């Protein structure tokens, strides 16, 4: 079932206009598709992108599966992504991840049964000087502690994901060209 509306297509066309080739708009287009398809990219989403951009579907799949931020599976409402890389690790990231796991009763990489939360190990977030760091949606939480996590989980539990998780595709408007 195609999900792209005329509005989606207009957004894609605006993206295409930024580049010399339609193919170059593939990454931003996949962000849009991920938003339209509720946070992940089923094959139909890739097919729609392929059709709109005029790029072979296998190329779209190749790109979508290359980048870790395109989800190939449905995801939790709120994804707690904790940096596990070195600067965070030597500042207690593993302990923090363990804390989240116990608190939510899931392992890193899983989501809670109701689909509200997941805990994920991610690579260096570029927040090394404020380690450990975690990210929910587009927001960074730096120098994170168990208290940070407690507060976050409490606040997020009843919040729709969009309010904390503005989709990456919501490109701020480009000025006049």
């Amino acid at each position: 079932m195609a999900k792209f509306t005329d509005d989606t297509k207009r957004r894609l066309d605006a993206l295409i206009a930024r580049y010399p080739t339609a193919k170059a708009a593939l990454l931003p287009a996949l962000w849009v598709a991920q938003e339209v398809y509720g946070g992940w990219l089923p094959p139909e989403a890739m097919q729609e992108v392929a059709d709109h951009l005029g790029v072979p579907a296998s190329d779209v799949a190749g790109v979508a599966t290359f980048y870790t931020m395109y989800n190939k599976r449905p995801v939790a409402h709120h994804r707690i992504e904790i940096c596990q890389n070195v600067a965070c690790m030597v500042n207690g990231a593993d302990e923090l991840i363990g804390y989240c796991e116990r608190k939510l009763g899931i392992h890193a990489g899983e989501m809670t049964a109701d689909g509200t939360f997941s805990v994920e190990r991610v690579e260096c977030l570029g927040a090394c000087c404020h380690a450990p760091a975690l990210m929910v949606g587009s927001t960074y939480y730096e120098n994170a502690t168990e208290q940070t996590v407690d507060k976050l989980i409490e606040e997020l539990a009843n919040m729709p994901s969009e309010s904390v998780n503005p989709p990456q595709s919501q490109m701020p408007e480009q000025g006049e060209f």
Partner: protein
Amino acid sequence: MSTQNGPDRPKTPAESADVNKVVTDTKAAQDAGVPMVSLVVDGKSVSVPKGTLVIEAAFSAGSDIPYFCYHPRLTSVGACRMCLASVELEMFGQRRASIMATCTVPAADGMVIKTTTPDVKKAQNGVLELILANHPLDCPVCDRGGECPLQNMTISYGPPNTRFIEDKRRYVKALPISDHVVLDRERCITCMRCTRFASEVAGDSKLGLINRGAQSEVGPFLGGTFDSNFSGNTIEICPVGALTSRQFRFKGRPWEVKSSDSICTKCSNGCNIAVGHRMGEVVRINGRVNEDINEEWTCDKGKFGNADVNSPERLTVPLIRDAHGALVETDWDTALSAVVTNLQYVAENYGSASLAAIGTTTGTVEDNVLLNKLYRGVYSATNLAYQLNEAPRRLPKASIVSVEKAQHIVSIGMDLAYDQPMYYLRSVKAQRNGAVVVSIDSVIGLGDVALTPESVVLVPDTLAAADYQVIDSACSAAGCGYSVLASDANAYGPYLAGLDGTEAPSVSDLSVGLDASSKATDVLSGLSAGSIKHVFVMGSDPVTHMRDSRLANAAFSSDAFVVVTSQFMNATTAKASVVLPIASFSETAGSYLNVDGQLQTVDAVVPPKAGTRPQWQVMLELNARVGNPLPVFTPSDVLPAGLVPGGSE
């Protein structure tokens, strides 16, 4: 000594083809006046055309460099890192030697290449150890075993033992990804040959890489199938056993399979193929190099479709219509006697105008020559048709090779990839070089195409006569002309055999163009009117294939005596008085004129299937039985003098 490397190491046929291609390309570039560069490879000075890669220069110098991802017909990616050698060159004002992937570096003046130093050996060894780390090493059960570049390189260049004790990557084995191809991801070494083939050569990108890093795998679009008409080629260029043929699976070990040169007859392109056979049975079709036709590719129709030679549906016993009107099995002698008896009876009682024959556009020129000798030669029959369709009879202006240089290609009423696979592959090449390729369903769309004198217009031979007029006027207005592409393997064979009465027919007549009337229609009218009492249909199925199939159906339902030669039952054999089961392309020798006028002669590859006979032998026998014994021992004995087969390379 277990390891044997260097230029004399054993090579798989594919590897030898690669080296040969490099040698021919080098020569061609040299002849074309491409400037040369000089370098030293393993102490030997060589000059190679500018643009040659170091690995190719090494081949030209007689050195050997192991490789996997490099392929002379694909763009270089430098992915496998197997082709390491020491390259000394000047960069940023400094001269220094370093180990480089030679498949990516163009040869340049003054380079010094070393392929055998201990450092190079160590580096190659190290890369091979890594390639093998996750490889399942299941050669004993792998279809590729015995002709596998990886296996070969390992014997020649590899580490003697493995230090990898970890768990290997695991995937579901033998995953069918199309009707023809099975994928074994555990064996894949991610060389990207197959995916580059799909995007660069086949132009359909039906196979791609997904995931990344150690999880990278090749596959069709998620959940889809590898439905390309060229999928089979990936089986041949995969340097391991990751892509194998479902058809050939477990049909035999590569070393038990004999290979004989032949020509594919599934369409008119005449691709050069190597027929693999084991104990008299055709087991697989591989591509064979012919730069003017198929380079080294085949289409799936040819590669897998030719398996019909083994079909249990093949006719193996002559059939004759009995007193109750049923077709029943008989023996050859009875069947041939019946033909001869009727032929003589009709000739004596009704005259030669009552005899007709339709030549074969799928069989050989020689088959047609012998048909002509019988009907025109012995009985002076003139109702001899040589073409079922109404297309203008003229070789195409645009040859297969020429299409890759075109700027604007318009195909009308064809699925080029299926109908004219080699024209299609050249059009993909043209497109990669910037050409615009347009495909329209019928002449109705022609109005929307801006033709120029440079346009190459490709048209099938199956349109209605009126359509050709439309195309003709559109093209002459634009000054570009158009090319009618025949669909059968030997569309002009009957003409070259003199079936229409031409004294010394030649290929050059075909470049000029022939009378366009369809004699086959005359035969139909004669049959319907009752004036034709005997017709010999050689290897074709007019009831199915003529434009006016209603008319054809009615014509063949008349009382005339109908002789049909065929490999399978079809709509015309169903109406026959006698059906003669004939040998397949792989079981008979002879010559074919391909779509753009290249004459190729082949030998039989395997003996005719039991019960069948090659068509030319059937015709020889009939000639003999009517008192016209011919001194013919092979088909080439009857090839018209004017025809000099270019043959296959």
